């Protein structure tokens, strides 16, 4: 199958998913589904940010949740103090991008190797976790916003329409906006990797030495894609803050580890794969959490997630999406050959093994 056809089918699949999420689900009007859908969308945006910087930029950020959580907190604090959450949204995304720029500057200009990059990003995320975890008490109040320590900020404000800070959006509207934010981020990533900048980023992933010898300052390109990833993760954090509320768990080890699992299971090097991986793993852990009886002892979500990851790494080397796409292509090729055989009454190409 040609690349352009595959790309067109990809857009059709994305459009179908968007139609289902934006038209079919709201028509059923199940509020629980929609609230869960917003949470999934927030996490999926986080997965997308890692899909971009790791899958295309080759930067393994083990602390992608730093930007997710930081944007959540900035959104909540700014929202409570300013009263206008639309402004808070922009501040939050800008703050996570700025934080990614500062962190990225030190990492890329310091010429850190990949392993240290993972260690440092994870450490930064865990420092943020520790910090926000101990912010219980009156002294940790920014303006009118108490940071709340381990409990987070349960009074995280809900988005309001621009100019109407006194009318918070309904869960249905938050759901629609969350799905649209996910679609927007997906298209943004597609756009970024299609630009010259994006092609250079991919080339740098393939061979940084060659890219430098051709005149690309690899530090600058890595920083660029890292900042875009930070901003996207930040938007995911704001979506999450609107669906649940902000708390230090946004930064913790489990969140950071999960994102990496979603990307690996869904397919590193693709954009839609990690989103699917995120949905599949979240659905699986929700289902496992709802089991009771004898089975529940053996179906600890973490245990099962670990098993799924292991199976994926060992058997589906490339992850779910690339495996499914490859299988689909083989099927189509076989069907086409059958049709040709029927048409001409005899096998077409003898040298082509079935």
């Amino acid at each position: 199958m040609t690349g352009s056809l595959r790309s067109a089918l990809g857009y059709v699949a994305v459009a179908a998913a968007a139609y289902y999420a934006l038209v079919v689900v709201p028509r059923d009007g199940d509020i629980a589904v929609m609230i869960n859908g917003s949470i999934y969308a927030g996490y999926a945006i986080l997965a997308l940010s890692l899909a971009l910087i790791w899958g295309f930029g080759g930067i393994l950020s083990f602390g992608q949740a730093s930007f997710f959580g930081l944007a959540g907190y900035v959104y909540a604090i700014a929202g409570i103090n300013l009263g206008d959450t639309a402004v808070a949204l922009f501040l939050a995304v800008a703050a996570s991008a700025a934080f990614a720029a500062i962190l990225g500057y030190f990492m890329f200009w310091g010429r850190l190797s990949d392993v240290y990059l993972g260690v440092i990003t994870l450490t930064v995320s865990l420092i943020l976790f520790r910090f926000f975890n101990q912010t219980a008490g009156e002294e940790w109040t920014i303006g009118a916003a108490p940071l709340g320590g381990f409990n987070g900020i349960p009074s995280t404000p809900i988005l309001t329409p621009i100019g109407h800070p006194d009318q918070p959006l309904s869960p249905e509207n938050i759901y629609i906006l969350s799905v649209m934010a996910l679609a927007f981020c997906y298209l943004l990533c597609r756009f970024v990797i299609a630009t010259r900048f994006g092609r250079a980023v991919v080339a740098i992933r393939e061979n940084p030495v060659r890219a430098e010898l051709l005149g690309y300052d690899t530090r600058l390109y890595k920083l660029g894609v890292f900042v875009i990833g930070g901003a996207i993760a930040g938007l995911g954090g704001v979506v999450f803050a609107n669906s649940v509320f902000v708390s230090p768990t946004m930064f913790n080890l489990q969140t950071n580890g999960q994102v990496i699992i979603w990307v690996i299971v869904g397919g590193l090097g693709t954009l839609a794969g990690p989103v699917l991986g995120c949905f599949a793993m979240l659905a699986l852990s929700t289902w496992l959490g709802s089991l009771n009886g004898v089975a529940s002892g053996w179906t600890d979500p973490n245990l099962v997630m670990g098993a799924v990851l292991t199976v994926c790494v060992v058997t589906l080397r490339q992850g779910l999406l690339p495996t499914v796409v490859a299988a689909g292509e083989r099927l189509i090729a076989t069907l086409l050959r059958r049709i040709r055989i029927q048409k001409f009454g005899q096998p077409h190409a003898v040298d082509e093994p079935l």
Partner: protein
Amino acid sequence: MSATPPLLEARGLVMRFGGVTAVGGVSMSIGEGELRCLIGPNGAGKSTFFKMLSGQLLPTAGEVLLRGRSIAGLHAASIARLGVGVKTQTPSVFDGLSVLESVRIATNAILPPNLARRRADEALERMQIGHLAKAVVGSLAHGQRQLVELSMVVSQAPDLILLDEPAAGMTGREVERLGDLIIDLVRTCSVIVVEHDMEFIRRIARTVTVFNRGVVLAEGPAAEVMSDARVRDVYLGKEAA
């Protein structure tokens, strides 16, 4: 000193790795449109010397001047943008990209889109690998990968091209074509070639510089240098230690 500085001048270049001196004070000057061959046994410091010229290594001491401007200490990408193209010893290519995409990456770095596209196509035609444009670089044979890397370098039309063992892994016909290509390149730019293949050197060489143990052992016209007894000894391993 002449009115215009030489294209490239190395002055007393030294590179030490810990206690090991890989290059121990090399001075060399390359003029515009010159073809220079560097030869010498393994470990003589040729590749290290190249890496200092291209900015991949920071010299311990000494200076590199490009048209009179000091470039030692500049970032490799900045040196590349000043017009120095490098083909590394083992093919350094983008394995996951197609041949055409790879060359587009090279031309994109220096040209606007429509020109970049044309220049990339021209480079592939010039290297006679236009038929491989859509092939994934990682799936190609060693010699073809060498040509892909060369296409990337040539497509940027640099003023100086450093070729580190370009003929390695190529078939006889490919080597012949490479020789013609290098002679063709020298009409528009200067080329420094590191090579072990003496047959190849004889084919293309004009001026030859011989490296041994990190210093220049001999320099001069090809025929003269190759009949030098010291050079023969170095290559045959007879040198008294």
